[in-house]
């Protein structure tokens, strides 16, 4: 019977070590992260996520963006992320402190999205890319996300956020393609993806 007790104790104790270090410890310590304050300008970083980007994060998860896109930039010594212009510096825990859900991702079939909101600032670019990825990058292997849009008859003036589509994607005359609330939230979220501010623990690498 002592053998069985030893087994139970060992099984719990050994697993408990990893649980404390890799689950409980980050849960507690990362709750204590605070913004960094620039001493010269008094500017705070990072800033919270604007608009509907938190809802957009849910759309990002629901449609599985994270299975092909990552959201972190490795240090220069650990890969070519910075040379690929996916970010000016590596990302650190503090960069994610305002994200309700964090999708680091483990695949890069698509580009890293840590700073996609810095590379592309026009919502129209995102709408066109989501409606037909081949419209913004002819060789793209990304699937189209048509259900984030509706095609409807133009009532009076065309909507401000109607997607500018060309060629076979263009809606019939008198109709327009507009993003749904989900589509808008997703683009808000993507626009909020940027770490273009300095942090003391992750300075930009100097050449």
């Amino acid at each position, binding site marked *: 019977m002592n053998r069985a007790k030893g087994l139970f104790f060992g099984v719990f104790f050994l697993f408990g070590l*990893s649980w404390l270090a*890799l689950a409980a410890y980050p849960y507690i310590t990362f709750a204590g992260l605070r913004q960094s304050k620039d001493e010269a300008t008094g500017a705070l970083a990072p800033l919270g996520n604007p608009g509907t980007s938190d809802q957009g994060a849910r759309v*990002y998860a629901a449609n599985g963006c994270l299975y092909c896109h990552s959201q972190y930039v490795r240090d220069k010594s650990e890969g070519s992320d910075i040379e690929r212009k996916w970010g000016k510096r590596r990302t650190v825990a503090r960069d994610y402190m305002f994200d309700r859900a964090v999708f680091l991702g483990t695949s890069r079939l698509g580009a890293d999205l840590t700073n996609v909101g810095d590379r592309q600032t026009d919502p129209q670019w995102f709408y066109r890319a989501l409606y037909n990825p081949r419209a913004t990058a002819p060789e793209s292997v990304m699937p189209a996300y048509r259900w984030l849009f509706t095609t409807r008859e133009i009532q009076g003036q065309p909507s401000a956020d109607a997607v500018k589509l060309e060629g076979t994607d263009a809606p019939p005359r008198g109709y327009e393609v507009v993003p749904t609330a989900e589509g808008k939230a997703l683009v808000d979220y993507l626009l909020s993806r940027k770490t273009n501010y300095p942090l003391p623990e992750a300075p930009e690498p100097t050449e």
Partner: protein
Amino acid sequence: MERSDLSVIDRSIRIPVLIFLASGVFWLIVASGFWLLASSQIHTPTAWWTFPGVAWLSFGRTYPAFLNCFVYGWATCAGIGVGIWLLARFSSVPLRNSLFPILAAATWNIGIAVGVLSVMGGATTGKQMLEFPSYAAFILFLAFVIVGLWALTIFWARRPGPTCVSQWYILGAFLWFSWMYSTANILLNFTSAPGPAQPAINWWYIGSLIDLWLTPIALGTAYYLIPKLVGRPIYSYQLALFGFWSLAFLGGWTGMTHLIGGPLPAWMITASIVARVLMILPVLAVAANFHLTIKGKFEDLGWNPALRFMVIGAMAYTAYGFEGSLISTRTIAQITQFTFVTFGHAQLGLFGFFSMILFGAYYYIVPRLLERQWLLPGFTKLHFWFSVVGIGLLLFALTMGGLIQGFGLQDPQISMSAVSDLIGPFLLIQNVAVLLLVLANLGFAFAFALTLLITAPLKRRSAAIESSADAPRKIAPEVTVA
């Protein structure tokens, strides 16, 4: 230990084990459907089967549906079924209260169905391998607690005497899974963990899921069945003990190797790399033990399906362990991280190692529980060869494609679309490989269903199956702790 009552024990546990095994096969087929769809969609972004207007059939949903169906539907149902069968055999006591595991199986199936429908409907958590929303996770946890507690009562009710290493693996797996699944869901999906903590908890969970749930279930099964099928005791008892405790020590630490260079404290990632490299020790212990147990006997045995599957599974475990240690070192991870190499590695573990061992267990257990032959031996051979060729081809395609992808990503001069062009042919090969594996699964499921449903005694007995069914009754050479 007196083993004359094995068939009595088998009879007492027949219904709950068969329900879990059948549920596993059912979800394996559902997972196969998602698998084939997802692996066809990934390289043909404009084909009709990518369903551009249909959200619930898009790649972003079929892929997590496949993984969750495969791991929680197939692997976990099969694992629970085989696990409770093993515990019952070891306890040497016929079982009571078999209503509990039946209830658990029904609840578990409901949980998977709710979870998969939620993933397809878009109610995903976005946490990898924990995509099921909290309500589905709660149903699953409830089911697991019922069957887990019941499994513990089997262990407590056992006939006094020595315990075996297999038993340790299975019990450990049940305890570890209930812990990891509950805390990961509570921390991530019931309460919302601080953003930067989420990847750490998520990958602690995934590492543990592979190394402390699926791995010990498969190893516990192999440690019992391989010696039984070969007809001699396990080679070294000390090695087996060492393998168990080193796995228990390292298993919870391996996950962060997927986040090398990620926004986590450096010590977490370093600890994970060290654990993953040290993981070679339990892998070698198991490999040496099985090899020396089987050595010289394998050729004498003829075509025994259970043993064939188990031997391939054990070999895949060795390969999986070695590859895991390799691709976790910082130098190699720089190339392989974010690429299909890691997908191939995961498939080698999930299919090549875990599923092959569990398939072998099915071919051993099901005929004993039903007290009749496994039907369609031709399908068994098809299942075996399609599985072996399929997983080999899949590993080749994902590893070669992944390496090219990795070197491409490493060179900032090569555009992302040029990288996807380069790996296009390999993604086509992986699609063919997945098709082979899906066909193998279908053949297996068809023969399993026939065996289960056709009660008439069969006139023509297959020599191949017979050798597996009759040989091992007389001997019980598993490792015991004195």
